[in-house]
């Protein structure tokens, strides 16, 4: 889709630019700067000021009652936590695992649900349904189902003679277990994005390919895959950012446990806030902001470039 739009833009004749300027002059008269004031004030009070305040408080030891300026001590403290390395690794593992799985599964389901199969409408709603359920509800439900001895999953596995793993109670497996639930819950959204992308591919391309004698695989490889690239980028961006700052599901299912086995940056920050280390946890938030930027900004740049190249 984007490819089509950008060719159109490139085709704009140079003579139109004058008209554009006249139009923006008119816009400036009809909508003076005053109109920005309410939105600008809201933005300033609720977003800009808190953001700068948090940068400031991350440099202080803050008890809500008073604060003391301590420079970068909070960042030193935060980055020297023995659990931080583990939680950084967990954050990255969790984000890339869920994002990758959502791309692959979302694409597969998208292809399946746009093909001519029975009960397509029903299947589409079934795949999307988990997206609509509250994350905390999903977390509580799966925590019960994943109980090592009494849970539904392991009792079902026991019926067929398999001794199920301990899921959330096993420090090696806890993060993966939560990631699996996240994938189950989030794949519906990825599927819908892919379905939209697949439907938008013009049918002529497929007809031409068929005339040329292309098989199902090469049709997918050479036509579908490149043309749904914008959908892939959207899914990657959304799920990666979601995964990097993921908190609610992890907190509902393991609270970062057992021990610190499934801690991510967001849960470490939350625990520090709970403990009353307000300056320190604010510094943690600044660190998280930087980590997300560090991963997402280059990724976004790369994907934009790839899109334009198309």
């Amino acid at each position: 889709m984007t490819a089509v739009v950008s060719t159109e833009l490139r085709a704009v004749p140079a003579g139109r630019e004058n008209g554009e300027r006249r139009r923006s002059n008119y816009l400036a008269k009809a909508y003076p700067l005053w109109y920005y004031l309410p939105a600008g004030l809201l933005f300033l009070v609720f977003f800009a000021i808190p953001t700068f305040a948090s940068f400031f408080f991350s440099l202080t030891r803050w008890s809500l009652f008073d604060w003391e300026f301590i420079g970068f001590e909070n960042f030193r403290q935060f980055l020297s936590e023995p659990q931080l390395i583990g939680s950084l690794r967990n954050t990255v593992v969790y984000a890339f695992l869920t994002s990758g799985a959502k791309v692959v599964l979302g694409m597969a389901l998208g292809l399946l649900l746009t093909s001519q199969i029975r009960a397509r409408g029903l299947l589409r709603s079934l795949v999307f349904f988990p997206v609509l359920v509250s994350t905390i509800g999903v977390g509580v439900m799966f925590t019960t189902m994943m109980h090592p001895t009494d849970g539904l999953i392991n009792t079902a596995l026991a019926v067929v003679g398999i001794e199920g793993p301990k899921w959330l109670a096993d420090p090696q497996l806890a993060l993966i277990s939560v990631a699996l639930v996240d994938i189950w819950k989030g794949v519906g959204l990825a599927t819908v994005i892919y379905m939209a992308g697949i439907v938008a591919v013009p049918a002529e391309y497929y007809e031409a390919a068929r005339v040329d004698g292309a098989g199902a695989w090469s049709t997918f490889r050479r036509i579908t895959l490149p043309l749904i690239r914008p959908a892939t980028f959207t899914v990657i961006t959304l799920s990666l950012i979601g995964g990097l700052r993921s908190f609610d599901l992890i907190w509902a299912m393991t609270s970062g446990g057992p021990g610190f086995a499934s801690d991510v940056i967001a849960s470490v920050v939350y625990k520090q806030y709970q403990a009353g280390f307000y300056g320190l946890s604010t510094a943690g938030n600044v660190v998280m902001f930087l980590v997300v930027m560090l991963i997402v900004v280059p990724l976004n740049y790369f994907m934009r470039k790839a899109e334009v190249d198309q």
Partner: protein
Amino acid sequence: MAFSRRSLLMGAGSAVPVIAITGCGGSGGGGGGTVTFLVDNNPNNIAASESLIAAFNESQTDYEFTMETRPGGTEGDNLVKTRLSTQDMPDAFSYNSGSLFQAIRPVQNLLDLSDQPWVDRLAESFPDSVSVDGKVYGVPHGGSNSGGVWYHKPTYEELGLEVPLTWDDFIANAEAAKSAGKHGVIQSYGETYTSQFLVLADFHNVATANPDFAEQYTANEVGFADDPTAFRSFEHVEQITKEGLVNEDYVSTTLEQALAYLATGEGAHYPFFASGISEIEANHPDQLEDVGFFALPGDDAATNGLTVWLPNGIYIPGTAENPEAAKAFLAFVASAEGLAAMAEGAQPTGPYMLTDVPLPDDVPTAIRELQTYFDTEGATTPALEFVSPVKGPNLENILIELGTGSIDAKTAAQRYDQDVEKQAQQLGLEGW
């Protein structure tokens, strides 16, 4: 154009201080002679407070008290701090004594109660936990609590065991129970805070070995990794899990399941609070006399004794609208009538902190037996969190890491010593 983008931004910037968010002050106590008492939402505390308020309102005609509840745990900590810092605190509120009390800046936020008549009647161990620089800020809210080991009495009779006075005897008993097909020691990491009792309830033993531990700990002169007795409690956690004395599903077991194991005799021991009695009473009323409680044993049978959790304090904020009413209420809380009224709502979980008020007659045997420790000279010690403000937030999870075999006892103790640094610095203590 009438004005530029720059002037717009400057105008907006100077307008901000005027409309900056103001605290929602002044709505604290409510008007019209009613006074509010803020208490955490533990069901027992609610029941006891309802009965207390009803009795107080009946005992006098000047003031009408009502109750407001707040969440417990760390969420409650933040709520209390926020309401104090926005001057929005009701006229009387219940909150932890000891280290958490120190963290709400008592001198700045609370009313000095040193001149109240009940101060002289306080049990010796209590005033320090609600005092700063010798000034008392709170009245004890109900009975004390203790940390130790619950045991199943019929199992002990069946196997011919005796209440252990040393850690080695305790392990021998746990092994005997395990050989009889029971869980030697129940652990319940599904409720993370329950992982801490083998360490926190061991403080009596630490303090008998080194009476100055709390002081040196506060001054950063000693830690869990380098004090031999304190370090032993970390080794205990490693020992019971490594030797397989615990229930198989201990990583996901919840408090409720753990108490069910204990009450039904599936497990022989469970290290926990004495206050677990109220859950046992609610869920297993017929087994109430099947459970007993002993102090966590250390190395020396001669110095066996109990680690005691002091009750919450009830405090009056400096911004109270009706301090006289609040003071009258606190005096009632410290009276025999007030304590009896609370006991009607929910029974106390241990002896009172007022020297002249005994426990009611109808408390379960396990709780009444605690009085023996209190009556023996030197057999009770307040838990570390009441004598030192230094307590790290991650002890429970560090112990779970240790108990699940991710790290060893030495690493766990070192990590905890590092964890408390943040709290000490936050409080601005010297030597950190």
